[in-house]
């Protein structure tokens, strides 16, 4: 299968998982972050579930010379911890808390609540453009 087909299947499965798990609902995600309110632990179960196939996948990855449908592995480094990483994570976490949305659910919600999701997605792209301009 061609690479775009593999990516589409992965995206479909990812979007299915987001919607099925309740993570497409920003209120539920925000409730996970709301330790002093009506806390909802669902997100922790989602994270736990997602770790299992991926932990196995990393073990398999180490035994492969190249991926099944592409020429080589193209993976980021794992050790560099700097101010950009930390400050980016702080800003992302703040936005996540304020809206209850991270990029995956925001995009998935384009199908579920398009009027609201389009606002978040456009703002998100605006933030990405701002970063690109600022770091040019």
């Amino acid at each position, binding site marked *: 299968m061609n690479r775009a087909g593999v990516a589409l299947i992965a995206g479909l499965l990812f979007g*299915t998982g*987001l919607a099925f*798990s309740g993570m497409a*609902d920003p209120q539920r995600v925000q409730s996970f972050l709301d330790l002093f309110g009506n806390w909802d632990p669902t997100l922790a179960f989602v994270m736990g579930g997602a770790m299992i196939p991926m932990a196995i996948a990393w073990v398999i990855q180490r035994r492969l010379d190249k991926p099944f449908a592409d020429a080589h592995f193209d993976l980021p480094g*794992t050790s560099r911890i700097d101010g950009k990483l930390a400050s980016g994570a702080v800003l992302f976490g703040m936005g*996540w808390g304020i*809206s209850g949305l991270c990029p995956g659910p925001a995009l998935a919600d384009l*199908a579920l609540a398009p009027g609201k999701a389009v606002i978040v997605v456009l703002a998100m792209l605006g933030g*990405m*453009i701002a970063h690109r301009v600022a770091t040019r």
Partner: protein
Amino acid sequence: MIPVFPHAMPVEGFVGGLMIGLAAAIMLLGLGRIAGVSGLAARATGLADTGAPRVVAAAFILGLPLGALIVSMFTGGVVTHFPDSPLPLIIGGLLVGFGTRLGSGCTSGHGVCGMSRLSRRSIVATAVFMGAGFATVAAMRAGGIL
């Protein structure tokens, strides 16, 4: 159901999480890439110069709403609760977009893929953005805007 947390969906959450993890595993073992949504979204829209080929990134990103649509059709609708005001969506979206680019990842790339790889970098990033999320919502609650 968890008695103390009547709204929680532990079973759906876990099963949905397995699907997300399987999707990320397909990206890793099939295409040799991290299923990081922020990076792929930036790549698909031409806002990143390196990463997956644009057609690969665009196909993955397109799959996200299509997957959600499939669940919605088979389950009779997926419930979402958004704030009435667009303000938190705009401010939150801007911060998420800028922050994920600056920090090189979001809940999927650092959280799911990086932590399962035991990447020190991703574990730190995930701890920081989760901490910032907890603190932000606590501050909103203390300030009476939640």
